[in-house]
């Protein structure tokens, strides 16, 4: 189990356009490699290569069904992005909200009701 995968691996994994396309197509649900190839006009070796990277960082999970290998999205691995974004957004919102409050204060002083 690659439990020690760092979050930065995930960032790198989804930095690549084709890998993002693969993840996009998997949002619809579990798919075989062939179906992904059909969806994305990429070659099978290309798709397989990207799927390997995505599997390594845990963004997709693979299972065998007969001779087919089915891939599905592993949404929990996206949490680091969500956390980072939430933190950044919160910091900026707090600062701009302070500015907003201060602007209101100034305007109330300037225009007594």
């Amino acid at each position, binding site marked *: 189990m690659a439990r020690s995968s760092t*979050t930065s691996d995930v960032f790198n994994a989804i930095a690549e356009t084709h890998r993002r396309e693969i993840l996009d197509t998997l949002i619809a649900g579990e798919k075989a490699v062939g179906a992904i190839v059909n969806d994305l006009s990429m070659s099978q070796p290309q798709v397989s290569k990207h799927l390997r990277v995505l599997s390594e960082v845990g963004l997709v999970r693979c299972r065998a069904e007969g001779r087919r290998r089915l891939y599905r999205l592993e949404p929990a691995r*996206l949490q680091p992005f969500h956390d980072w*974004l939430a933190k950044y957004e919160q910091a900026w919102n707090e600062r701009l909200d302070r500015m907003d409050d201060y602007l209101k204060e100034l305007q109330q002083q300037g225009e007594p009701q």
Partner: protein
Amino acid sequence: MTPNRHGSAVIEFPNDLEIVTTREFDAPIELVFDVLTKPEHVSKWFAPFACEVTECSIDLRVGGNYHIVFVTEDGAECSFRGTYSEVEPPTRTVATWLFEGWPDADAVESVDLHETDRVTKLTMKLAFRDKAGRDHMTRSDGQEDSFNKMEDYLRSLLEQKETVSG
């Protein structure tokens, strides 16, 4: 009463090097410009809650410098400085942006204001000179590399997260 706009900032990552934040304020453009550029105003909102602004000097003219320092609760000093390259009251300023903690992460910050019916829209764009500089942003939060360009994508994935079994 005007509606409360708290929490309404929109943050976008249009490409590898830029972070763009937009936010509307119920105030005329001249006042928003002053609050963004006059030290007596900036010191009132710039620092996070419970931090103290210890220096705030702004020489608002092309070639003029600004320097803003605040001290966090645990005593850490955060120092930001830069030099203005464009000053067009009340609509636009462009200045270099240097955070002392990341000496090699220089960026250019442009601030644009646009007023419609007493609502002023603020657009702040932080453009790093190179990816190494931009990457400080991610490293500082325990991440590294390559998140900016995928921000939209991320949102779409996260929105759908609930509908995907996991």
